[in-house]
């Protein structure tokens, strides 16, 4: 595994937190604590749709092993950012590097092969495929034995195991979200991006989804999370960025942003005191 070597080679600063050894899914596990090495670097990214600039030159970093969140209202450009990282949109300017590789010129397939995966907005499970087949599709690029990873995602999501052969279209919204996350994990990514995983779910399920996000992060996964549910996202995140109409207007640690007066007013529904 080449990514292991890269990890060893990285020189760390002191930021970051210790991750415990976790499930079999991650190739980028470190025994020696985290380096804070920048895994994904986005610089001056611009994305336009037919003359409308959805993302207007944003820059941010995702350090290895952390949860980074982009929060903001509808149309702030969060989804466009994720979509351009994974090659579904071509950025009009800027650069995206992952492990030092430039992604902007790569196709989606190649980007996925290099270890990034996106849990798309609205879950988008393959409704006509069984739960098991959905998971196998997640591991489409792999040709090795999947049984360990299957056991692992089933241990994270026991409810999926019960529904092993059921068509994904018959699952509830929460179960579909779990499946979408499990499917993404099956590719053994180095970084997983999630686009509004809490969208349209009951509060108790949202809580469950965030518990899972924390758990897979605890096991060593780097996560880039896009959310409108700023409260939950900032609580879970190591680092947060606030996006407004295509620009990043604020950034800071998850805790700091959650306490920030502007953020509170705009996204957390708390009135000025």
């Amino acid at each position, binding site marked *: 595994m080449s990514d292991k070597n890269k990890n060893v080679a990285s020189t760390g600063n002191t930021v970051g937190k210790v991750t415990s050894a976790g499930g079999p899914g991650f190739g980028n596990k470190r025994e020696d604590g985290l380096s804070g090495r920048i895994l994904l670097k986005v610089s001056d990214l611009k994305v336009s749709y037919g003359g409308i600039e959805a993302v207007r030159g944003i820059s941010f970093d995702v350090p290895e092993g952390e949860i980074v969140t982009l929060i903001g209202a509808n149309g702030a450009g969060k989804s466009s950012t994720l979509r351009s990282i*994974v090659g*579904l949109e071509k950025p009009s300017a800027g650069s995206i590097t992952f492990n030092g590789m430039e992604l902007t010129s790569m196709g*989606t*397939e190649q980007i*996925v*092969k290099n270890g990034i*995966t*996106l849990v*798309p907005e609205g879950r*988008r499970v*393959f*409704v*006509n*495929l069984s739960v098991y*087949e959905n998971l*196998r*599709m*997640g591991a*489409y*690029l792999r040709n090795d034995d999947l049984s360990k990873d299957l056991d692992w995602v089933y241990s994270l999501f026991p409810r999926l195991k019960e529904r092993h052969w059921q068509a994904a279209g018959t699952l509830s919204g929460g179960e579909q979200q779990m499946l979408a996350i499990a*499917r993404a994990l099956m*590719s053994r990514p180095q970084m997983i991006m999630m686009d509004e995983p809490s969208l349209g779910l009951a509060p108790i399920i949202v809580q469950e989804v965030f518990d899972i996000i924390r758990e897979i992060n605890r096991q060593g996964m780097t996560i880039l999370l896009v959310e409108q549910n700023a409260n939950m996202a900032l609580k879970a995140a190591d680092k947060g960025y606030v996006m407004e109409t295509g620009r990043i207007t604020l950034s800071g640690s998850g805790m700091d942003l959650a306490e920030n007066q502007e953020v509170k007013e705009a996204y957390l529904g708390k009135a000025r005191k």
Partner: protein
Amino acid sequence: MDFLSKNLPYLLAGISVGGQYALIAIGYTMVYGILRLINFAHGDIFMVAGLVLIYSTTVFPLYISIPLTIIVTVILGMSIEKIAYRPLRNSPRMSVMISAIGVSYLLQNLALYITGGLAQVYPTIPFISSPITIGPATTKVVTILTPILMIILVIGLMQLINHTKIGMAMRSVSTDFETSRLMGINVNNVISMTFVIGSFLAAIGSLLYFSNYPSVIPTSGGMPGLKAFVAAVFGGIGSIPGAVIGAMLIGIVENLIKGVGWTTFSDAFTFVLLIFVLLFKPTGLFGEAATDKV
């Protein structure tokens, strides 16, 4: 019993023709399933397969020209997708359909140019053209061979779709292009694969179908193509078992109508059936509910 023995030849012919329609109909239904496109050129691909065999037998022995025909047909189907449909992947569906109609006319007119408008005599393929007697009916081996071969191919195809990785990828792509790409699936390759399978089956169908006919003309693909299309719609377009059942039904009923003596109306039956299906059950026998892809 009397009815059966009197109509056995027609029934056998119906099963055989139905099997041939089925092999063409699968091509329509698979392409529709994945691209939501009616590939109007499919019947003409079938015709071209006939012509390729005719021309290749003038140079090569049959054991070379039959595989050659299959290969050329597959390459043709794949190239049509690459040249005429792929560049329109993000265009409205109507544009792709018009492109398909264009390809259909292009193939017919190319065939007209190459054949000079003359009917080209289809070679006799030994064994499948030899006579065989079943009870009171005498027919060709191809009549019996067609349904058997068709069933074997369909079972193989269903295995491929339901139990292999590429089959799973095909089903994924048919529900959601973008998410399939996120899985690392090369959507274009999967679509090419669909055209490969469709054209392969059309080539086999063409070998079986034209051995019952003396010759091939540039419009020979029209009627069987249309009937296979009706079969696919009747069975529920997108569904492979549906296409097979629809094709068998159309083939058998058409020939029984001929048996009764209403030969003139046998084609009309197929198209009246189409009208009724569209009026009363537009999704066909096994079609998915009419939810459009968003």
